[in-house]
């Protein structure tokens, strides 16, 4: 245990009956870091965060918030953090002001400081004009801003954010994003759980990807992207007329590993963009295709996510395709599993390294 880390998790485990939801994970979050916590549905994100928030008791292992054990020293640990859950859990039957006053009392903000602090936070969240309104009259975005204000009332050192801008209007999203950046500038450690890859890519210093209850990767977004071979791409935006059957030939160019069409864009995945680019230019000129723009792009964090977990973020878990693959922890969309299903032989072992997701036959 060390208080040099804002959050430290050691061998953290959670069983729900026989179901292993969180499988002996280790994690360190440095003070002042924006730490992204990504994972598909059912991966164990919420369970992990609930254990860190003291809402759930771990089955095994330890978790520390600035050196305080969340199980043995919950009072001290709770003083360190604030929580903004996915669904803003504010009291809709009372006013904005009453919600803030109640939170100030819960966190023992001195009476002389309460009004000043509440006014300061409501102004930051642009809720001053709504302070006497019952919360049930506020929009979803306003309620989430209120939830953030309530989480900040005691100036926490660590802030847990679970999908902070999901489903919010642009104005509220912008306010919350700006506040996250500002808080981090002031030194607050942010633990961000989100399905919005762009947000994680933009804000996070490091990202952890959890899959099947295990940490699959912990790295900076850039290093994660750099490690994913074959996910660089050449993106072609088509003009008037859009994608035609003549464009289908682009997928067969030398160096192209995969071609994905998305509306008026075609994305050609490759590990050798210059070669593909030369081929694309020649192909376009030969057929006089109406191309508006050509970009070369690196792998996105979403590409990394799909590569590691085998499914897009937010996708539901799929059932096993084969009885023989039931023992494999990497089951969803596994090519080897499909081959095993066809051949009738089970995979022998699983791929190593932090890019888990492959197995051998």
């Amino acid at each position: 245990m060390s208080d040099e880390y804002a959050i430290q998790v050691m061998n953290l485990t959670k069983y729900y009956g026989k179901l292993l939801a969180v499988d002996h994970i280790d994690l360190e979050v440095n003070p002042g870091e924006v730490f992204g916590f990504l994972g598909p549905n059912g991966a164990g994100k919420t369970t992990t965060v609930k254990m860190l928030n003291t809402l759930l008791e771990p089955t095994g292992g330890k978790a520390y918030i600035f050196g305080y054990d969340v199980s043995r020293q919950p009072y001290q640990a709770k003083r360190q953090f604030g929580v903004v859950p996915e669904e803003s859990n504010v009291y809709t039957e009372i006013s904005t002001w009453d919600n803030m006053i109640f939170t100030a009392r819960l966190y023992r903000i001195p009476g002389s400081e309460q009004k000043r602090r509440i006014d300061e936070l409501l102004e930051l969240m642009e809720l001053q004009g709504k302070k006497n309104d019952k919360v049930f009259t506020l929009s979803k975005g306003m309620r989430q801003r209120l939830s953030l204000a309530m989480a900040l009332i005691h100036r926490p050192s660590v802030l847990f954010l679970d999908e902070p801008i999901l489903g919010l209007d642009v104005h509220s999203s912008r306010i919350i994003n700006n506040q996250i950046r500002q808080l981090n500038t002031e030194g607050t450690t942010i633990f961000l759980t989100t399905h919005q890859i762009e947000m994680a890519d933009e804000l996070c210093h490091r990202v952890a990807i959890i899959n099947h209850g295990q940490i699959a990767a912990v790295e900076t977004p850039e290093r994660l992207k750099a490690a994913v071979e074959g996910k660089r791409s050449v993106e072609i935006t088509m003009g008037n007329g859009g994608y035609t059957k003549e464009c289908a030939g682009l997928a067969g160019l030398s160096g192209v590993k995969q071609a994905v069409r998305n509306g008026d864009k075609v994305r050609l995945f490759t590990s050798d963009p210059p070669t593909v680019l030369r081929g694309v230019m020649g192909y376009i000129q030969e057929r006089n295709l109406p191309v508006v723009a050509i970009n070369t792009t690196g792998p996105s964090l979403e590409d990394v996510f799909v590569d590691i977990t085998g499914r897009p973020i937010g996708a539901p878990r799929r059932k096993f395709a084969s009885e023989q693959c039931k023992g494999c922890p990497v089951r969803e969309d596994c090519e080897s599993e499909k081959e095993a299903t066809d051949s009738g032989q089970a995979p022998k072992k699983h791929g190593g390294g932090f890019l888990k997701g492959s197995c051998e036959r």
Partner: protein
Amino acid sequence: MNHEAVLTRIEKESFLSRIGDEIAQAWAIAIKDVQAYYLSPTTILWALLMPLAMWSCFVVRQGMSGEAGVSRLLAIITFFSTSSVGPVIILLERRMHTYDRLLVAPMSLWTVIIGKSLVGFMFGLVVCVFPLLIGMIFFGVTIASPVLLIVALLLSSAVFSALGTLFASGSAQMPCQVLIPTMLLRWPLMFVSGVFIPLDGMASWMRTLSYFSPLTYAQDLLNHAIVGSVIPTAGTVWLEGVQFCKLVGISQMGGIQDPFLDFSVLVVLLFLFIVPSLMLHQRSRRLGY
């Protein structure tokens, strides 16, 4: 950030100041619940009209004296008002995830449970004032021992409010999952507790059952406090009860049981209801509901 300031404050906090904080936090929870849930007209009307309706039917039918009627009315009102609204609120807050807000705040589980029970306790006391005033003003009811009445009301409200919190501490997620079992429990308790049928008029098997009902002791203590007109039968030896009555200033006992027994059992029940609530909350943390 003032992480160092937070750490310094935590290290400097004494045990007494921590206790003071927890009391203030429990009070804050109670006040918030009053603002959010208890001040609605529906809640107040329900708490007043339902027991009044039951009592008036019963008193008219039985031809009971004002004092005896008021003591039973206060028992019913305390029982229903303190143990009905609280569990529903806890389950509603669980569904809305606002209950999580209390669980992640820096306070002990005791404080959460006491805070939630405190509001039911206060509600029961406030609701009791109206029938008591009506009885005194319009029916000429006199109180044999005001001191004992205050003690009885405080203790009964606390016990039944804790009972309500216990109902909601289990794994139920919907209000109806608590309301139905509690209604199935409350109605039989009322019939075996001396509220509708006086204890000394019960069949022996019912009288045996009455010892297991918390409402029996609350109702009997209220009878001692308000009625105070029945002289104990010869041969009844209640040494503690006699001393207890002298302590609270009554010379004649209106209840059937030893008032010291009523008082003691209610105090024990208060802890018997709160401690399992704590254990069930801890269980929910382990199991994740």
